[in-house]
């Protein structure tokens, strides 16, 4: 494991063990106050553990036993870069100098650092902004520059703290795409309460609630079949993976799910995931007539209450239906049903 964190901070009710393998991305998913920021603070070196150890590449970054410090590496020697909710670009430096800040701080000459910065800006299509001051950037541009600045520091571990939270919804898809591309080989921990961030950026998810890891596993597994209460309350998405046909996602079972791609011009054959909420799924006993729909033939596996609704799990997907519908359709495990979902309810993301 490249990064391991096994630490407790009793004053914050925090006791968490997580690890990330080289080049992988772990999402810490949880509500506000769950302890995500504490985990990032421990890794970045803005907080001290009371007990436990934090390591990166086999090197201890911080360690403590019963409140007594055993190891402490200063934040600037950790090679752990932090990207916060706000871009936090240094307002007195140009975009280029912001990006060059990391290399320059690590002892490279002004010329080398500037060259490195220009390289990064060129690679991310930001060259046009190089001479601007941060005040002259849009929110989305600033956050992209902040990501590039963090990466230009060549961190062994990148920490992202709710990177989309402060942005307008219309710029988040572009930024997610940028991150997806840039984080491909970067060891990363991303703290988020947004399931989409986890879905699109993370290889694995650790669900944190009340300062504890309540669930841990590969992204698709945690999001589609959450075992924890919190996981179920925010996730429980229907995720159907396959390849893009140009109109929909062809799944392994042969079905094609029609939906709206969040990005235009995806070449056919691209790995994609169709995402829709269980509440968007309707169940029938026979093929319904009417508007074009995605139709799945499925067998009921379980029926359980889910708030005011009832969650019906099938071999294909999950649906949230009213108790009246359960009674009318006599939904019991083993019953064959036809599940439909409007294409308008389905979002399709590249994976």
């Amino acid at each position, binding site marked *: 494991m490249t990064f391991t964190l096994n630490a407790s901070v009793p004053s914050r009710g925090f006791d968490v063990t997580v690890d990330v393998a080289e080049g992988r991305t772990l999402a810490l998913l949880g509500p506000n106050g769950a302890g995500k920021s504490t985990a990032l603070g421990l890794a970045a070196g803005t907080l001290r553990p009371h007990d436990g150890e934090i390591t990166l590449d086999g090197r201890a970054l911080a360690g403590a036993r019963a409140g007594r410090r055993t190891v402490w590496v200063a934040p*600037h020697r950790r090679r752990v*870069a932090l990207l916060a909710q706000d871009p936090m670009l240094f307002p007195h430096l140009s975009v280029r100098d912001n990006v060059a800040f990391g290399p320059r*701080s*690590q002892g490279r000459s002004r010329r080398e650092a500037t060259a490195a910065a220009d390289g990064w800006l060129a690679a991310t299509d930001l060259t046009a902004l190089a001479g601007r001051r941060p005040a002259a950037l849009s929110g989305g541009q600033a956050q992209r520059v902040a990501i590039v600045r963090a990466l230009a520091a060549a961190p062994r571990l990148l920490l992202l703290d709710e990177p989309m939270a402060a942005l307008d919804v219309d710029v988040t898809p572009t930024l997610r795409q940028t991150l997806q591309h840039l984080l491909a080989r970067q060891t990363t921990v991303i703290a988020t309460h947004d399931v989409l961030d986890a879905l699109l950026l993370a290889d694995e998810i650790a669900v944190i609630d009340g300062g504890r890891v309540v669930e841990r596993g590969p992204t698709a597994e945690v999001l589609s079949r959450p075992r924890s209460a919190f996981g179920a309350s925010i996730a429980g998405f229907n995720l159907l993976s396959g390849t893009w046909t140009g109109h929909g996602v062809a799944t392994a079972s042969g079905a094609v799910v029609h939906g709206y791609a969040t990005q235009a011009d995806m070449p056919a054959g691209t790995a994609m995931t169709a995402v829709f909420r269980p509440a968007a799924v309707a169940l029938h006993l026979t093929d319904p007539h009417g508007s074009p729909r995605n139709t799945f033939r499925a067998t009921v596996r379980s029926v359980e209450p889910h708030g005011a609704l009832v969650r019906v799990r099938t071999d294909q997907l999950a649906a949230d239906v009213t108790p009246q519908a359960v009674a009318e359709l006599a939904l019991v495990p083993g019953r064959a049903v036809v599940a439909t979902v409007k294409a308008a309810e389905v979002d399709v993301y590249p994976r």
Partner: protein
Amino acid sequence: MTAPATTRAARRRATRDPAEVAAGLPRWAFLPAAVGGLFVVLPLIALGTRVDLTGYWGLVTSESARAALVLSLRTAAVSTLLCLGLGVPMAIVLARGRFRGRNLLRAFVLVPLVLPPVVGGVALLATFGRRGLLGESMEVAGLQVAFSTTAVVIAQTFVALPFLVISLEGSLRSAGTRYDVVAASLGAGPTTVLRRVTLPLVRPGLLSGTVLAFARALGEFGATITFAGSLQGVTRTLPLEIYLQRETDPDAAVALSLLLVAIAVVVIAGTHHRATP
């Protein structure tokens, strides 16, 4: 520029937007504000009316006036540098340090602000004077502070330092540490962070603190006359010269006062312009 309305640039432009309505400004505030402004400006104008313009140049270029002006500018400049060298670290320690007794320390640092300067001079005598706490051993080492230009610089630094510290500490506190955390995470050591991020971010506060310290040093009177004495070219700064001239030549005193006001205005206006681009 295609920045949306939420960017900082747009917000800054908005403050100069003629369409903007002034919020949080009750109309009655204009009257006391005008009275207050007049209260400050009127004495300066009155001072100006006392100046005999025909003899002005002669009065401010007399040998004693020139000596006092040069001494004042020199000592105030050195004091300001000393204030920067000592005050910047003090402000950082007070703003960022996590230690017991910090509030008490801050209170002590600010004491010269409320201390009558004459008392400050007495306190400095008790410290650096011949029979003072440090002065006695300094005397043995051959260092004589009293009646020297050094004493003027010490007196000025003593009274001016709190102005720099309080102004910079306030800026540091309101700037917060978030940029510093980000800079450290990019690999910058604490000194690099201070030099390249923290201080540039509080530049307006640092500049105004420096100007305040310089102005206070330039106007220093009580502590200097008590601690340093008064000798032309050595310890008699412009305020001491003005006070002395008042005995025999009130016209010269007024002329020199106006010169001091002019210097203060030039310095403050010059740096204020640069502090708010």
